[in-house]
């Protein structure tokens, strides 16, 4: 009797809530997909084709509808990963590890998008592809963090330890990111005061702002969508031999 109870207990611990998540995410993915497609296409099409031309920068400014949302989600993804890292370290929750594993490549790709769109935007605006200003530098560091997390993960063969190692690195990175940002700011003021700012948020008109907000919303939804899909794939990969998955 005691033995079966113990077996049940370990069985429960091992499964965690992944079957539940797999089931629920399977149901919600079509809806999330629908809404993310809707918001993303409205936001970007409106912004790129129908919003008024900026009187200062001309049409190049339309990159804002992809650059600002990408920059916004790239930071937000790191924050959520930090929360997951804390959960994973304190409660050893398996799903938190799966979350970090799945979100890191997504975060890296959106940080990459933010960097490259900023650079493409910078070329016609300042005449240079790259400028060592505070914001670009800290975004680059964020990108390197994502890459480091991904490569650390792939260096472990045991999933359990990989999750914990990546959680430690994510947390240490999260503690250091504000310090890095602050120090890059000091460095920037010391070397060259920022003469041009990327977005002059004060002067943006409502016709330009609405599609931007919709686009940002769309980006968050598409991150949610790809996160759900990546987590599903990760769960399936890890639990391919589990009874529940075989019978699903």
């Amino acid at each position, binding site marked *: 009797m005691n033995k079966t109870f113990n077996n049940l207990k370990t069985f429960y611990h091992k499964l965690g809530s992944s079957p539940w998540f797999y089931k629920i995410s399977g149901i919600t993915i079509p809806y999330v997909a629908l809404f993310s497609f809707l918001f993303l296409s409205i936001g970007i099409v409106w912004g790129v084709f129908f919003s008024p031309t900026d009187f200062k920068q001309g049409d190049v400014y339309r990159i804002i509808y992809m650059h600002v949302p990408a920059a916004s989600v790239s930071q937000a993804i790191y924050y959520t990963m930090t929360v997951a890292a804390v959960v994973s*370290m304190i409660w050893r929750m398996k799903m938190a590890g799966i979350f970090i594993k799945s979100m890191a490549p997504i975060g890296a790709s959106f940080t990459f998008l933010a960097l490259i769109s900023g650079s493409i935007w910078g070329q016609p605006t300042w005449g240079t592809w790259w400028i060592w200003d505070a914001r670009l530098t800290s975004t680059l*560091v964020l990108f*390197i*963090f994502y*890459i*480091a997390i991904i*490569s*650390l993960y792939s*260096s472990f063969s*045991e999933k*359990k*330890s990989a999750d*914990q*190692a990546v959680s*430690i*690195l994510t*947390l*240490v*990175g999260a*503690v*250091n990111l504000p*310090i*890095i940002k*602050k*120090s*890059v700011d*000091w*460095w920037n003021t*010391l070397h060259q005061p920022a003469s041009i700012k990327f977005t002059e948020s004060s002067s943006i008109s409502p016709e330009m702002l609405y599609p931007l907000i919709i686009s940002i919303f769309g980006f968050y939804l598409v991150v949610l969508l790809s996160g759900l899909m990546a987590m599903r794939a990760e769960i399936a990969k890890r639990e391919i031999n589990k009874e529940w998955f075989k019978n699903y």
Partner: protein
Amino acid sequence: MTRLAKRIFYKELVSYKKRSSTYLSPIVFFLITIALYPLALSNDPADLAFLAPGITWICVLLSTLLSIQNIFNEDFEDGSLDIFFSLRVSTLSLVIVKILVNWIFSSLPIIILSSTVVFLLFLPSESLVILLTSLLIGTPVISLFGALAGALSLGKSSILGPAIVLPLSLPILILGTSAVSSFLNGENPSFYFLMMLAIFIFLLPLICYACIGALRLHYE
């Protein structure tokens, strides 16, 4: 705790004494990288003097990283860590002592050696004290990051080390070089020293415990 720390300290000292490559190779690395800059950039004393603080800092950063990222590897491979964990004593003393001994044997010689940049890179001699102070305060932080990277990538490829350590070290690099350049501009560099010290004090417990967690991971 203290008795144990003493024993670990002594053991580390003995093994460093026996393996001269562990403290000689960072020195060689440091000198050769310093020599690369004039060859690659320019031999004009004015140019080099302007770049000297940055070059020195980058070279110290890289050579510190070179030596520290393997500090746990040997103990992991020869079974010393198994024995250590079987004793069930505080891992904190192991981590701190190992970092400290590595700093004494690898970073300190390089810091002392870096005073040669006054001749090699024509650094204005009055700013040497500032440079050395910034290195003394800054390198322990880099050692902490390096130890963490070493603990995370134990027994694996060392390419992970730089990817983890270098982005984390940016603030120290910025503050360290800014201290020197602000001094050369006639300002008081104490702000940068205090900042670096604050970062060290803030990170010391955090990184040490992260190190312990990372070491434990390889025993799961």
